[in-house]
């Protein structure tokens, strides 16, 4: 190859090279443009989006919960406190192999399948990153020991102190204070800003439930900066929660104990209330349970409670619906007086049987042969049924239902407990709606003695009794007397209006129920005892067929009559109103009244 062609070749090669360089530069230019646009997009146009994402990465808001408010009695003695238990928690993000760790822990600590299931459900519901999840709520000392020896194996697992509710007196206050249970998803989503912890326990019944929003306190927040591993780098800010206030119950412990003791072996409810304020002094529903069983999740005992046929969880005091039976008589008497259908002199011949003219249906009185000639005082003292059959017929159902509704029946009293029932005050419309059949005169007659479709709760009855005690005024029943340092004020619920004379004579009649030799509760009379007024009641649970004798029914305990008593004392300045209902107790005078007497005596003795 000669010089010139070599030179040409070189020149040719160089221009080819230059073209190639330009060609190569094009994709780089394109790449640069793509890159530049992306950078503009990231750090200029969408800066705020990424800035937020970056903040969310590192900033974690950890809620701080207040310790739950305590429950005390009037004298500041503890009823429910918080005690420390140990729980096992795990942080899933920090766990390298979650499934294996779970299996190992389950094997070592014999964790129940239920707990594992709960854990797995909690995984998806957490509210903040690195939120620990509870694996075992209550570690036994044995589990703590086993875990402690092996803890290096699971660096993301640790034991944490856990406050658990402790009812100091076991079952004594069970139906008042209620119990705690696992928070459910709805509770969490409805709790708004409070945001329950996933493993939080919340009040499921009683005071614990009714005052949940007060007892739980407010929620505070700790804002921390954390790295990618969730390790806390520094604390940015902290808002402490407000301390949850303690609740002070109006309950009198001695009275409560006596009430509960006297109900052991029976079922029913006892409520004692201060008629002047509405504050409850004792409230027992029996059978009951030990709240500790729930608060600490003791599985075996829980099962036993759930399977108990006598429904120990059912709060008869506010949810039980009973025929008020003869305890309704004083109120109907007052209505009759107010409507001028009767006066204190009006008398009726009671021969033990009452026949409805319209359909010829026969109603028997409780006493064979009757009480002879009875006026209102005698009708209350001896609890004449025939007198009140007559009165009811005169009053008509609408008068009766309107009046009973005006004195708190058919609606809740608003006591600070959950699941309060209204009971039923029937009328024509109600019966048509419920049974599809029309109202019979006989239905009205039945209501005259507090039977038939009429039902009331023990709390309604004690409030009604307190209206008698106050000669008119009835206050809303309340269990909590003080929230923190705030006194709870009394609230008027309703007033029964009638003349002073009527009140005096009604009280005399109610006193004679006990003091008179012919009174239905004369069995609890003591010559120099406290003066108390009351009214017994015996509620039929099944209606007597004509040919059937009560002795037949007796044999079957579930068909026996309920025993009732309402009363107040001491006269003339009543400080306690009481209702006692003993299911299948048969006799208001023999079974219910003596329990009330015990309570009165204890309470008044103490006051002196």
């Amino acid at each position, binding site marked *: *190859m000669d010089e010139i062609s*070599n030179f040409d*070749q*070189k020149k040719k*090669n*160089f221009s*080819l*090279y*230059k073209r*190639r*360089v330009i060609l*190569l530069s094009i994709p*780089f230019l394109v*790449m*640069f443009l*793509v*890159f530049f646009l*992306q*950078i*503009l997009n*990231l*750090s*200029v146009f*969408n*800066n705020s*989006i*990424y*800035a937020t*994402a*970056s*903040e969310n*990465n*590192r900033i974690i808001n950890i809620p701080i919960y207040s310790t739950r408010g305590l429950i005390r009695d009037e004298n500041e003695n503890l009823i429910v406190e918080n005690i420390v238990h140990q729980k096992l928690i795990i942080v899933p993000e920090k766990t390298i192999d979650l499934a294996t760790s779970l299996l190992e822990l389950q094997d070592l600590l014999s964790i129940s399948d239920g707990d594992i299931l709960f854990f797995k459900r909690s995984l998806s519901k957490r509210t903040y990153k690195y939120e620990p999840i509870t694996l075992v709520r209550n570690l036994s000392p044995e589990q703590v020991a086993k875990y402690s020896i092996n803890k290096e194996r699971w660096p993301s697992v640790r034991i944490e102190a856990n406050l658990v509710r402790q009812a100091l007196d076991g079952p004594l206050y069970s139906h008042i204070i209620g119990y705690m249970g696992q928070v459910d998803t709805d509770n969490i989503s409805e709790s708004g800003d409070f945001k329950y912890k996933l493993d939080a326990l919340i009040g499921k019944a009683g005071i614990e439930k009714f005052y949940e929003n007060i007892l739980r306190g407010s929620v505070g927040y700790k804002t921390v*900066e*954390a*790295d*990618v*591993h969730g390790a806390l*780098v520094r604390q940015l800010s902290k808002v402490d929660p407000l301390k949850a206030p303690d609740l002070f119950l109006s309950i009198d412990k001695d009275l409560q104990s006596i009430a509960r003791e006297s109900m052991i072996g029976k079922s029913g409810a006892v409520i004692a209330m201060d008629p002047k304020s509405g504050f409850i002094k004792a409230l027992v529903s029996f059978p009951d349970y030990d709240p500790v069983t729930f608060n600490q999740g003791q599985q075996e005992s829980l099962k036993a409670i759930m399977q108990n046929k006598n429904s120990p969880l059912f709060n008869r005091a506010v949810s039980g619906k009973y025929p008020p039976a003869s305890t309704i008589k004083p109120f109907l008497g007052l209505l009759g007086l107010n409507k001028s259908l009767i006066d204190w002199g009006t008398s009726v011949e009671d021969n033990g049987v009452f026949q409805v003219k319209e359909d010829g249906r026969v109603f028997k009185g409780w006493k064979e042969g009757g009480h002879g000639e009875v006026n209102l005082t005698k009708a209350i003292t001896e609890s004449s049924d025939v007198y009140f059959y007559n009165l009811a017929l005169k009053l008509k159902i609408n008068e009766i239902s309107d009046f009973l509704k005006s004195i708190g029946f058919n609606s809740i009293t608003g006591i600070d407990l959950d699941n309060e029932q209204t009971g039923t005050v029937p009328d024509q419309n109600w019966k048509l709606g419920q049974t599809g059949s029309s109202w019979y005169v006989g239905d009205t007659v039945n209501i005259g003695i507090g039977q038939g479709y009429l039902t009331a709760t023990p709390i309604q009855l004690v409030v009604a009794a307190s209206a008698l005690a106050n000669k008119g005024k009835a206050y809303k029943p309340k269990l909590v007397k003080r929230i923190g340092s705030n006194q709870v004020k009394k609230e008027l619920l309703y007033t029964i209006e009638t003349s002073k004379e009527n009140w005096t004579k009604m009280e005399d009649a109610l006193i004679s129920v006990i003091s008179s030799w012919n009174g239905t509760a004369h069995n609890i009379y003591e010559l120099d005892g406290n003066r108390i007024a009351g009214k017994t009641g015996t509620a039929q649970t099944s209606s007597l067929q004509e040919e059937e004798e009560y002795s037949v029914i007796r044999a079957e305990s579930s068909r026996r009559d309920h025993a009732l008593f309402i009363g107040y004392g001491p006269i003339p300045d009543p400080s306690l109103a009481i209702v006692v209902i003993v299911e299948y107790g048969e006799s208001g005078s023999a079974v219910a009244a003596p329990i009330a007497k015990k309570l009165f005596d204890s309470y008044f003795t103490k006051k002196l």
Partner: protein
Amino acid sequence: MARLRPLEHTLNTRLGEVPYSKKLSSILVDIPLILSLIVTLVFGLFILYSASGQSDLMITRQGIYVIFGIILMISIAQLQAKTYQDMATHLIWVAISLLVIVLIFPAEGYKTNRWIDLGFISFQPSEIVRLMLPLSIASFLTRKRTRLLLKDWLIVVLAIFVCSFLVIKQPDLGTSIIIIIAGFLPVFLAGFPLFYLFSFFLIFFLMSPFLWGALKEYQQQRIITLFNPDVDPLGAGWNISQSKTAIGSGGISGKGYLEGTQSQLDFIPESHSDFIFAVLGEEFGFIGILFLIILYAFIFYRSLKIALNSKSEFGRVLVGSLTFIFMVYVFINILMVVGIIPVVGVPLPLISQGGTSMLIHLLSFGFILSIKRSNYDIN
């Protein structure tokens, strides 16, 4: 030619007679290029200090590599092209041998067979290969003054594929792509007929389903994630989404040096190596990114100038190749970090932590400078 400098640029002769500044410029060959490299390296050390969680140890080690690399670069710059031009052809055998050795005797303690452990030092042969390959190919294709035959091209293409196949086996998808590019750049610049080139790409394209099957599952996953990083932000898409968050949250002026929360709290994975660009973006913002891009552009401009001014075809092809390889590294890395291309594990040149990569880049610039020096000597 006016452009050519007088004899005084010859280092071997008459060095003592030239003024000091001239001496310096004759040793350093291209002061603007070297200065911009040093600025980049020092800037890199600053970013690395932040990215490494302010690790003095890491900065010291990297600093030693930087100093050693600069010395190496300037030493190589003193070489005359003719001293290695012919010999370089045989580097292909060294390259293939190293890649085979690494597969047979990989260093222990790594998940992949990418490292050779010599006891006192361990290095990644694939990094060295991507310098040896253009050297060898540039030398082979420019050894004859006659037109190249199809046979010559085929030999070269075969060599490239052998090397990249060996790297895929390690397995290292990112580097094997670099190896292919590092091999084809000199081929392309040496005038490989475009017809053949398109044929190759057509074959490659048709074979792509089979190649996809040959990829490891995690490699496929990376490519899938790229197109949809939000599907699984805590899984495979985590890296991209976190680095985008870092850059995006940096805004225009950045969060401040050592103040980047994404970087300092470890949200950016591999923040000291492959994802160091995200640290720069977070702490120095758009302005910091622009600064680095300008540095890279300047380095590219100076190097390309050397390529175009090179008197020998070997010099042109070699410098052009090395320059574009450098830019390929830059773009693969930055496009990966901003989420345009899949996560392939390519470090950011001159900035990312890592000795081998740093030394090879500086070595490349040594050769680029050496070609510039050789120009003077031709005259």
